[in-house]
């Protein structure tokens, strides 16, 4: 039916498609629907996350030692997924920021706010595991290498973003400010990715995602990808749970505001009742 319309009136068809897309977005945007949907999905998602994480941990534990690095190479299975996610979460937040600024999607700023602490935690874990890995490899916990430094800057930006969220009391005003900052910060992501090629100093160059296929051995690649999937699932689970909390927190806040407003108007009405007869007399 849509196809026939398209043949006759292409413009109307475009509008129709836009309308349908808008409908689905609006369906998703209803916080009550989101809450009931996530209430059903979350336990299953958590279970799948736990299973994949268990498989990934088992595979990483049984992976062979590296001929050069020994058992410390296993830190990679935790470190690399964290580092990937630290960038992915900023990407998710940038999409949410577009959703806030362009489409005014009501759940976009909830997602952005909920994602920021999770992303900061992943970045922090990437830094900590990296520094624990660096100790036996380089003999120092910290090295001012280009890649490490740009991850540290990413961490600082996460903290600044969280501070911005906390600095403004009204969530919707904070959302727009944070969205602008998030999009500006997205410029940092490609710098991190390509900094390895720009300043190839101490940190080893990217070995999984590069042209000409991965150089990592299969014995390491499979557990690594499994752990990456587990951490991504973990991120989705945590994000949905945090979004639920944020929605409930905002409802609580608006209920408290309504209560305070009702109380103050009651007080106003009471004082008017007292003053009006006085004025009339």
């Amino acid at each position, binding site marked *: 039916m849509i196809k026939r319309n398209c043949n006759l009136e292409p413009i109307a068809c475009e509008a129709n498609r836009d309308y349908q897309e808008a409908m689905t977005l609006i369906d998703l945007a209803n916080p009550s629907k989101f809450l009931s949907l996530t209430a059903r999905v979350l336990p299953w998602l958590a279970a799948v996350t736990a299973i994949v994480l268990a498989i990934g941990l088992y595979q990483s534990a049984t992976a062979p030692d590296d001929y050069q690095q020994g058992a410390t190479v296993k830190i990679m299975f935790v470190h690399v997924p964290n580092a990937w996610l630290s960038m992915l979460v900023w990407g998710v937040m940038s999409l949410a920021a577009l959703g806030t600024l362009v489409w005014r999607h009501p759940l976009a700023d909830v997602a952005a706010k909920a994602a920021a602490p999770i992303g900061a935690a992943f970045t922090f874990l990437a830094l900590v595991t990296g*520094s624990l890995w660096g100790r036996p490899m380089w003999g*120092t*916990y*910290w*090295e*001012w*290498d280009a890649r490490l*430094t740009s991850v*540290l*800057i990413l961490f*600082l930006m996460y*903290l*600044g973003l969280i*501070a911005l969220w*906390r*600095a*403004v*009391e009204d969530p919707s005003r904070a959302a727009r400010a944070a969205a602008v900052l998030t999009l500006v910060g997205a410029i940092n992501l490609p710098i991190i990715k390509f900094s390895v090629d720009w300043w190839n100093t101490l940190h080893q160059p990217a070995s999984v995602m590069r042209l000409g296929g991965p150089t990592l051995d299969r014995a390491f690649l499979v557990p690594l990808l499994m752990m990456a999937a587990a951490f991504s699932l973990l991120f989705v689970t945590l994000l949905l749970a945090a979004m639920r909390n944020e929605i409930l927190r905002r409802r609580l806040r608006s209920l408290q505001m309504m209560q305070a407003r009702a109380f103050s108007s009651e007080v106003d009405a009471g004082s008017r009742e007292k003053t009006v007869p006085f004025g009339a007399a």
Partner: protein
Amino acid sequence: MTAQAALIRRDIRIAVRVGGGALIGVLFFLTVVVLMPFAVGPDLALLTRLGPAILWLGALLASLLTLDRLFMADHEDGSLDLIVMSRTPLELACATKALAHWMAAGLPLIVATPVLGLLLNLDTRSTAAVALTLLAGTPSLTFTGMIGAALAVTLHRGGLLLAVLVLPLSIPVLIFGVAASQAAISGLSFGAPFSILCALSLVSFVVGPFAAAASLRHGLD
């Protein structure tokens, strides 16, 4: 005494809640320290040598940054007038406010020092020396900075004026703080500069509240 405890509780609660700026000071400290290697280069040996100075400068700037909230927010919502008019001596109230401010904004800086020491490749002994001198010196920064904050709030000017007023006053603390930590690192006599640092802090405990109370009393109409 209960009035002082209540004031401390109130100030700390405001500082750590939404809109308060206590933890932003730590974030600023971290950022300043991270910026330094970009300026001097990623040479770890050089950073180790400069480490105590970098940490001290960062802590000085971070504690300065949060100072303008010490009286400004209270002035805006009118609670400063209540504090001035209350039965508690204004000097005591000022000292209490400065103490609360130091607990909310100064102590986190000292807690963050070991992490930043790691970034600057300082060993445990040097980090401990810097943290100890910061613990002895940052109260002095807050108490002398309070004078500038009181002047700035009576003149309705914050920010840069405050920095220009307070930074020269904090030079002695900077000198003896860095001297004491360098002495502890290189094994020279730690006692003399550290004693002078403590003495500077003690003097500021006495002078700061009186000067701040005087400028508040004469400045506020």
